[in-house]
C-alpha cells in the first residue's frame, strides 16, 4: 500500500487519482504511525517551502520522513516535495530542508548569460533528458513532462541527478539516492512519461515487499 502524506500542502487529489488509474492501492494520512507502515511514501506539495517545512516540523512528520527513509522503503517527493528532500533552500530568506539528498534549492536567475530576461516560473512541458540508469526511469522514454516551479535543485553530487531538463540552466528533474526519489515535475500531470514513473515507483515499493 502506498501512503500519500497529507500535511496541508499540495494537490492530493491528482496524485491519488493517478494511482487509481494505475490500480494501485493507497491511503492518504497525516498519522506518523500509519505512514510508517506504508510500502512506499509519496510527499506531494505546491506552495512555499517555508510553510511546508514549518508544517512538517510542527506535525512531527519531518522526523517520520527521516525515519522512513532509514527503513530502506522507497520515498518519492513531487515538485515542492522533491525540493524538501534537499538540505536547504534559499526561498523565503533561507529554509532548512529534510537533508535526505545532498544539495540546495535556488531560484531561477530569470536572466540568461546574454542578459536576456526569461519567464519564471518554469511552467509548462519540457523534455526529460536522462543522465543515468535508474529503476524509476525503467521503460520510460525521454518524453515531455509538466513543470511548475520557480526554484530548482543545485547539487555537486552528480550521481543524484537521474534526469534533467534545460531551462537556461540545467534543471534536475528526476533525482534519487538509494531509496529516496524526487521529481521536480508533476508525474501525475505528465501524460505517459509521468504515469510510467509513478508506476515504476509503485513497482519498486511492491518488489521490496516481496523481498522482506
Amino acid at each position, binding site marked *: 500500500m502506498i501512503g500519500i502524506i497529507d500535511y496541508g500542502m499540495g494537490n492530493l487529489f491528482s496524485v491519488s487519482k493517478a494511482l487509481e*488509474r494505475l490500480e494501485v492501492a493507497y491511503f492518504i494520512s497525516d498519522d506518523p504511525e500509519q505512514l510508517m507502515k506504508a510500502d512506499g511514501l509519496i510527499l506531494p506539495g505546491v506552495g*512555499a517551502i517555508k510553510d511546508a517545512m514549518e508544517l512538517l516540523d510542527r506535525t512531527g512528520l519531518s522526523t517520520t520522513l527521516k525515519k522512513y527513509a532509514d527503513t530502506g522503503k522507497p520515498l518519492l517527493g513531487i515538485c515542492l516535495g522533491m525540493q524538501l528532500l534537499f538540505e536547504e533552500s534559499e526561498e523565503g530568506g533561507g529554509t532548512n530542508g529534510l537533508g535526505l539528498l545532498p544539495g540546495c534549492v535556488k531560484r531561477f536567475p530569470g536572466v540568461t548569460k546574454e542578459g536576456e530576461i526569461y519567464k519564471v516560473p518554469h*511552467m509548462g512541458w*519540457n*523534455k526529460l533528458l536522462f543522465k543515468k540508469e535508474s529503476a524509476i526511469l525503467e521503460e520510460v522514454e525521454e518524453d515531455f513532462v509538466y513543470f511548475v516551479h520557480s526554484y530548482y535543485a543545485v547539487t555537486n553530487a552528480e550521481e543524484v541527478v537521474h534526469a534533467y531538463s534545460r531551462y537556461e540552466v540545467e534543471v534536475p528533474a528526476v533525482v534519487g539516492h538509494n531509496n529516496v526519489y524526487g521529481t521536480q515535475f508533476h508525474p501525475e500531470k505528465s*501524460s505517459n512519461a509521468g504515469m510510467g514513473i509513478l508506476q515504476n515507483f509503485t513497482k519498486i515499493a511492491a518488489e521490496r515487499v516481496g523481498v522482506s
Partner: protein
Amino acid sequence: MLTKRIIPCLDVKDGRVVKGIQFVQLRDAGDPVELARFYDQQGADELVFLDISASHEGRKTMVEVVKAVASELAIPFTVGGGINTLEDMKRILRAGADKVSLNTAAVNRPELITEGSNFFGAQCIVVAVDAKFDSSSGSWVVFTHGGRIRTERDVIDWVKEAVERGAGEILLTSMDSDGEKKGFDVALTRAVSEAVSVPVIASGGAGNADHFAEAFIEGKADAALAASIFHYKETSVAEVKAFIKEKGVYVR
C-alpha cells in the same frame, strides 16, 4: 526549453458541454468527461473548462463534473467561470482542478488575485481578460461579465497589475476575433506577452492550424486555446501540432 501549448476549451453549462454561439444556440455538444478523455489522448497539453451555468444548481453540478473530468486527465486542468471567493477556489481545486481562472471577480476586487495567490501559489491563479480594441485610445479595453460590460481599464495596465498581484498566467481573449475564425489577434497577444513576465494564453479567432503558428511566432504567445474547431473536428490537436512543428514551433 518549454513547448508551446495547445489547449482545447470546453464551455460547460449545467454539467454538459455546449456549442459555441456562432452555431445553433447552445445545443448540447457532448459529455465533458468523454471529451476530456478524447483531448487528453489526442495530445492536448492542458484543458480549460469554463462554467457558463447561470443557476446555483448548475454550479453545484459543475463541482461533480470537475471531479469526474479530473479523474480522466493526466494533463493540467484549469477551471473558470463563477469563481468569486477564496471558498469558490478551494472547492474547485479540491475537486481536482490544478488552476482556477478569474475574470469579472478579479476586475471587481483585484485583492482576490492576491488572496488566491498567497493561499494556493501563483501557479494556481490564471487571470482571464476579455479585450476589445478601442480606436479612440488606440489600445485595448477590458470587458467583464462575459463581454457584456465595458470597463475603463486598459488591458496592458490591467495585466501588469494582475501579475503584480500574483497571477501566474494570463488567459487573453480577443473579443474582436472571437468566433470569427480569422486568426488570433496577433497585435494584442504580442503586446500582452511583452508586457508581462508570466505565460500568456492566446484565445479567440482560431480557424486553422496556421493561426496557431501566427499566435506563437508573431504573437509570442506561450499557449493558444480554441474550442469549436476542435469540437467540430475541423482540425485536431494532433494535426495542429504537426503543422506548426513544420513551421519551427516547438511542441510536445
